[in-house]
């Protein structure tokens, strides 16, 4: 176990220690010599060993962003920390330390091999993100509770497990329990689990395991269902008709409508609202169907556009590559010739010829680039126009549907008005058959109040419909705008810049090469 603090001074992970470790563990022999001269970047180091260093605190490792293997065994570390930047770690060894709790490993999602052997851990926890874990060693710790092991079921790839030397190992059912509940594990405590013991363990814990499996299955199904629903909703959102397949818009109209809700109690309103709702929802559903259809059309259009753009780019790329390949063949031949020419005038003409060829190559490549720029520009323009048309027809239709909704609302409003006047008269004459609540009675004090209440309910309904319309219009217009902008930016500007700079880079390189050759030749004579 741990050594006492006062016997040896704890050390700190510092520049010096890291530098030394890196150099010691880096390339050997000639490569080492070169590396030393050049210096080693910590960011390039793939594996690092810091064992028997009496380290107390993990620190200063943030520079090792490429590290895949880290050994920190045989130190006096008490807390796992400072590893959040080492996201590429695959192999982590923290054995023979004084760790009491598993923590600070959340960012290490690629971890496959984790060793916490010989520490003071009493609970397995905080490891949910390590979905790739294959080997886990937590022997010689302070684990007492067997049921804590069920936690390890979430690691589907876990094949090797070491629990030896924990307090619960002395329990007679320990091994059976582990085998039964962690059925994926193949090696337990350095030994292969044979089929016989697997069967026996399963038999022993059949009932709890079945139950657990059932629960897990249920959980999975639920999750799947939720995902499916979320996906569906996402699709509806993209079609701008989310919730239109139900009465959500209708419900929304009444959600902020105090008067309307109060008026619902008025006798006879029930039926009115029922027919109103029915018609309203039917229109909404039409809108929903239409929206999905349109969305599909739009998606298809988008896919077609991209397909054609990619095709055009590929064709252009192939032509460009062929041009370059042809030139490279020429270059090879030319360089070979140049190497054999000793006459300086002949050499000059040859070099000149080469340079003209290079210029020609530049012309050709730039020509190709110009060509695709033109082609794409045209196509994008077409696409933009078509998309705009599509969006506007979509909006027109949606607006048509919504105005149908408004008409319904108007009709409903008129009926409400009539009904409330009639009811008011009844209330005034005290002929009302049914009892009405105090709230409602308050509205029937005079004609203005009731008319105001009905009107405000109507206004609030119209407002909701308007809001919906605005929402759809803004969202789809935004979508169109961002998409077109992105296409312009990505396909026209960025792509063109990159290609032109690539061509220039290549041409510069070719010119440099011939210059270099000339200098060499010149130096010879």
């Amino acid at each position: 176990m741990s050594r006492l603090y006062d016997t040896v001074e704890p050390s700190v992970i510092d520049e010096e220690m890291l530098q030394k470790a890196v150099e010691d563990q880096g390339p050997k022999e000639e490569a080492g010599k070169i590396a030393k001269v050049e210096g080693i970047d910590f960011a390039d180091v793939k594996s690092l060993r810091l064992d028997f260093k009496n380290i107390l605190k993990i620190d200063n490792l943030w520079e090792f962003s490429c590290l895949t293997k880290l050994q920190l065994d045989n130190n006096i570390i008490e807390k796992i920390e400072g590893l959040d930047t080492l996201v590429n770690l695959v192999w982590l060894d923290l054995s023979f330390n004084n760790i009491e709790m598993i923590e600070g490993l959340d960012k290490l999602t690629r971890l496959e091999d984790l060793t916490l052997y010989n520490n003071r851990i009493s609970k397995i926890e905080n490891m949910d993100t390590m979905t790739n874990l294959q080997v886990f060693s937590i022997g010689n710790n302070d684990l007492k509770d067997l049921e804590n092991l069920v936690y390890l079921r979430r690691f589907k790839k876990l094949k090797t497990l070491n629990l030896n030397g924990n307090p619960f190992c002395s329990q007679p059912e320990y091994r059976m329990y582990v085998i039964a509940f962690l059925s994926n594990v193949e090696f337990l405590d350095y030994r292969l689990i044979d089929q016989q013991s697997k069967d026996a363990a399963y038999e022993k814990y059949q009932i709890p395991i079945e139950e657990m499996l059932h629960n897990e299955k249920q959980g999975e199904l639920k999750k799947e269902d939720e995902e499916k629903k979320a996906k569906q909703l996402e699709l509806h959102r993209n079609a701008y008709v989310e919730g239109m397949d139900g009465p959500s818009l209708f419900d929304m109209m009444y959600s902020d409508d105090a008067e309307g809700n109060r008026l619902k109690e008025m006798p006879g309103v029930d039926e009115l609202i029922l027919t109103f709702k029915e018609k309203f929802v039917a229109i909404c559903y039409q809108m929903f169907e239409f929206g999905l259809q349109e969305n599909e059309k739009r998606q298809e259009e988008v896919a077609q556009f991209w397909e054609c753009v990619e095709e055009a780019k590929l064709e252009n790329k192939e032509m460009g590559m062929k041009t370059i390949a042809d030139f490279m063949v020429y270059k090879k031949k030319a360089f070979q010739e140049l190497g054999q020419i000793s006459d300086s005038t002949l050499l000059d003409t040859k070099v000149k010829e080469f340079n003209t060829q290079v210029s020609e190559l530049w012309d050709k490549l730039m020509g190709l680039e110009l060509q695709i720029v033109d082609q794409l520009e045209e196509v994008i323009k077409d696409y933009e126009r078509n998309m705009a048309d599509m969006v506007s027809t979509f909006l027109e239709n949606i607006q048509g549907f919504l105005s149908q909704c408004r008409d319904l609302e108007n009709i409903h409003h008129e009926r409400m008005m009539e009904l409330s006047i009639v009811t008011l008269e009844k209330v005034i004459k005290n002929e009302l058959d049914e009892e009405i609540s105090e709230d409602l009675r308050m509205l029937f004090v005079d004609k203005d109040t009731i008319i105001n209440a009905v009107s405000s309910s109507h206004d609030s309904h119209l407002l909701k419909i308007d809001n919906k319309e605005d929402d759809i219009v803004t969202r789809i217009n935004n979508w169109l705008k961002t998409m077109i902008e992105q296409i312009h930016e990505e396909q026209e500007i960025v792509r063109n810049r990159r290609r032109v700079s690539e061509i220039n880079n290549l041409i510069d390189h070719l010119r440099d090469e011939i210059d270099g050759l000339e200098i060499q030749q010149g130096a010879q004579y």
Partner: protein
Amino acid sequence: MTAKMPSEEGKQNDASSEQNENDGGETSDLLGEDEDDEKQEEELSENAEALKEELAKIVVHPPTQEQLPKEIFDPAEFPDSYKENLPKENLVLQYSENFRRQYVHLYRDRKPLFLNPVNECGVEPRRLLSPTTILKRQKGNCFEYSTLLCSLLAGAGYDAYVVSGYATREVCLADESREICPLLKTKEEKMEEERKKEMKKYTVKPPKDLRSKFILKQEARAKSEKESEIAKRRQEEEEKQAELEKPPPDPLHGLRIHSWVLVLPGKREVPEGFFIEPFTGLSHPLDYESYLGIESIWSHANYWVNMQDCSEGVKGMNYDLGDCTQWEFMFNTDKPLLQIPEAEDDIIEGLEDEDGSNKGLRLMTEDTIFSEMDIQEELEKQMDMPPTWVEPIRLSRKDFEMRCPQGKKVKLYKRAKLEKFAHYLMRDGLICKLSVYEDRELTALIMVREYYAHREDKLQTKVYNHRTGIVVEYFNEGRMRCLKEHQFKASNPGPENERTMHFFDEARVDGLVSRIETPTEMTEHYKDREDFLYYKHVEFGKRPKKFGPQEGFGSNNPRPILKMVQKFHRNRSKLANEDIAELVFMCSEDKIQITYHTEDKRIASSTREYIKPHNWDEKGATLTFSGDMHQTFQVDPTSQQNKQVELYQMLLELLKAEDKCREQVRESEMEVVEILKDRTREESASELDISVYDTERNEKAKKHRRELERRQLEEKMRKQEMEVDYLAPFLAQLGEPEKLTRQQAYQLREDCLGDLKQRLIDKANLIQARFEKETQELQKKQAWYQQNQVSMQKNDEEEYLNYCSEAMFRIHILELRLNRHKENAPHKYMMLEQTLRQDPRLAEFF
């Protein structure tokens, strides 16, 4: 296989012309002398004067077929059904004679029908041999061939008919020398239509063509003119050639009688009707132009005469045999008639009244006393044909495998000769040899293609091209090193020469597809390798001259390697800039050149070049590295520069890769040498591969089987000896007659049973006697003991007691035996009786 065949036979022969024997199916001469004469007569009547002069020129030859030795069959060879007619058959003959007479009466200008020819047991030469005989002799004329083929087809359930008609000279003589050999016919390559670029909604427009349209037009016109001229010239040449190769005009065109097989659709999923030429076995469409006309067709059930016009060959012929306006049948048929009988009977009768010549053929003659209806009825009763008189057609496995007489056959085609051999006939496994010639006289050889089967080295085809001197061998799967195709120059078969080898790449661990060699180069293609390598090219230099004795192509003195090129497919798990596309080891210049793959969005690719350290090939030496040994071009100028140590490690890896590549090249060279060695060994010892299931040819299996048979026989012998014949002594008493009479049989049975009874009684008596004797003795002893009991000593007493117990035991045993015997004896008796009943010699009497 049993098959029915047309069973018209008789003494009358109506074959219109004499048929020459077709020797092995190769030639058939249907030259009709009669027709010749007729023709001359016609001419004579036209111009008698001219004829006189003509006659003077004509030298009359006696008919050549007379010289052919007539084959005489021994009637004893054939079963009775071949020699005698059953009453039913005679009836059929009567009908056919009746039919013939009506036919001749009504159609005086038509050729006599091919009805009731005699079979091999007849006397006259105009005959039709039975299919069994043809199969046995393996030769015959076209009618006999067709009959055999038709019998087989009908037996297998096809709707097949023998056709008697007219054909061209080439078909009649089985002369295929103007046909292209079927093996040479290249399968019509489906010209893959150039996939027209699909115009999608957003497909970009092609760049503007800035060339002058007028000039383009002019050029196109000039080009098309040139092309049409060339095409015209070619066509003319072809026509000329075709003219040259046209067969000479045939004076007997349209008169040559031939027979072939017609298969009609409907049965065995035949979608549409077709002809089968019996001499070649090839199928032809129903409008085959070499068949010039059909006289009649028949099957095992009926005979139809063609009533259709054949002036334009067999094209457009109707094969609806139920239509009696087009096919006149001999027997009433169960094929659906075109007319609905009741409704249209009147119409037919009416037609008969007006145009009796057409319909009257339905077996109505002057001497028929029955009314038409009666005949119809009677016919329906008698419609079933007599069973065939031909033995079932049997083909032994050996004959089937031998195919042709002696297992060999030679066929001549247009500029080609095809030789066929039966499997296992040739020692080297040759089954087919096709020679292609430049000219029709078959003198200038172009190419020879040999097909092999059952070879141990899996050689399938071998092609010698006599023009280029290139040999190509094709192999089947299953060879060591998975060789599939081997192409080399016959003059330079050794290693390090021009050759191309193709391999079964799926079977090879290294995925090698092909290896192409010239004296200084070697190119290899690979497929589906884990390291993405797909191409390797090596250039060799000249061997440094060595003094001393010349060494072979061993590893002692390999050719120096000047350059090695490796190409790789894109490995998507790597960045394009780090994924090597082409790796060139310039061994002669100590350089290594790398070209990387192109990134998806770019058109140029990064390159790298190393100069190898001077001491790279020293073992264990420390390799130094400096910046000027490395040059690179990065497509992305902003990309990070590699560190020196990385470059150094890369160099080390490249050096290792070079070593490995070099080793592989040497291995490839060795492999070529090994393959060539294998080939020479295989060529010299061409043992044929015999399947373990082939009991005929597998000597080992044969031996084993014989051994088994011998053992079985021995076993049987032994068993026979064991089984004692209990009737033998009694038969001997009767003087071992060949056949038992009833009385003798009864006697035999009685004796046998009596004997057993006697023996059983004897045995019972014997046991009884012993029992009694034992009892008596015991009683005597007991009496003795009673007397001397007082004076007896202890010894004697003991002795006595022992004796008593032993005697009692013996008596007991005897008692048991006696009882059991009494119980078993009746059973034994019954059993013998049963066995006697079943004895083959006595069974018939009981």
